[in-house]
């Protein structure tokens, strides 16, 4: 026997089955009361606790101690940061994380000066120290030095025999001559190693 949607008997059975079962008149009220009685979740309780105002009683001596501790932390932290910065750009490079170091470009400074007894590199990257970055000489009188530098624009010069500043003849000169001795400029872009330099 096969029923169909047009059969009135089948239609009544279906309608009967689809009718929701009768609920107790106070069913909804009891459900809502049960929900209200349930304890709030841990995050909700934590949030409520954090938002409620509190009164913190601290003695003057304790307050002073806390303030002094905070100030000491501030001073020591600032001093340490300043010391790391005071060592200059070169020192920061050495302390930089690996990813930052990887971003540096190895720049080879080259200077031809067969008659020089010593040649050093001085510039923005070493605090313009006359002796901090000595260059190496080969048999032909070519002086070279490799310096890792992050992208940027740096002024520099070669220090010949410890006293004479000589600009790099193969590099652009810095615009403006603040101290009567021209300086050269190297612009470092990220990427492959490069060589800069000329001859005396």
């Amino acid at each position, binding site marked *: 026997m096969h029923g169909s949607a047009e059969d009135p008997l089948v239609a009544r059975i279906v309608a009967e089955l689809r009718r929701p079962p009768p609920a107790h008149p106070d069913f909804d009220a009891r459900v809502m009361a049960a929900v209200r009685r349930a304890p709030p979740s841990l995050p909700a309780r934590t949030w409520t606790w954090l938002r409620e105002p509190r009164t913190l009683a601290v003695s003057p001596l304790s307050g002073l101690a806390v303030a002094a501790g905070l*100030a000491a932390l501030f001073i020591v932290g600032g001093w340490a940061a300043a010391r790391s910065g005071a060592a200059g750009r070169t020192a920061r490079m050495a302390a930089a994380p690996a990813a930052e170091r990887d971003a540096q470009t190895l720049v080879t400074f080259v200077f031809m000066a067969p008659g020089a007894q010593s040649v050093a590199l001085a510039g923005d990257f070493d605090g313009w120290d006359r002796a901090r970055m000595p260059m190496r000489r080969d048999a032909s009188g070519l002086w070279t030095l490799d310096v890792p530098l992050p*992208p940027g624009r740096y002024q520099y010069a070669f220090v010949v025999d410890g006293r004479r500043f000589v600009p790099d003849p193969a590099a*652009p000169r*810095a615009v403006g001559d603040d101290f009567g001795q021209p300086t050269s400029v190297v612009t470092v*872009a990220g990427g492959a190693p490069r060589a800069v330099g000329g001859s005396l």
Partner: protein
Amino acid sequence: MSVRILGLTAVLGALALPALANAQTDRLTGRLDERTRAAVTGIVDSVRGAGVPADPLVNKALEGASKGADGARIVAAVRALAADLGRARAALGARSTEPELVAGAAALRAGASPAFLARLRGDYPREALVVPLAVMADLVARGVPADTAAQAVLALVQAGVREADLVAFRQSVERDIALGAPAGAAAAVRATAGDLATAGVPSTLGQTPPPPRPRKP
């Protein structure tokens, strides 16, 4: 009580700030005479609040000391650089990095207008502008008129040229100048799109073109 604690902390912190500032200019100790060091430190402290970085100013003072310049000349150079860095920051924005400000100050000193810096930053708010600004300054140092240099750099940046290729472009212009070409003409010709392949930038534009640098919508 908590208000008192905060107040006391603020007072102690304020007392510690001068010590912090002095520590940042420690590199000057022993390199400058006391009077010059005090003057340079004063300049550094006075512009620090305006966002001007201390390192380039200290480096400028150390350059003068190393070259045997007198104190007045060192102070004047540091003061001039502080002004240039401040102008660069005003044009490039407060979020600019220290290398960008250094390169921007050099570009301004070379003759670039603050409007050029501001336009570059406006077009490329998230890009590092160190190399474009430095190349612009370097071109001017080689004799390229400032307007021509600015237009050339802007055209190359808009064409999507990489930083290394910008440096290569500058070197090509330098070669042209060394061979006798007028500086302005060399930069203008090298910067035209048709000549990019011979301007030292074939690796990016001729073979594997990079995606255009994102521009501000």
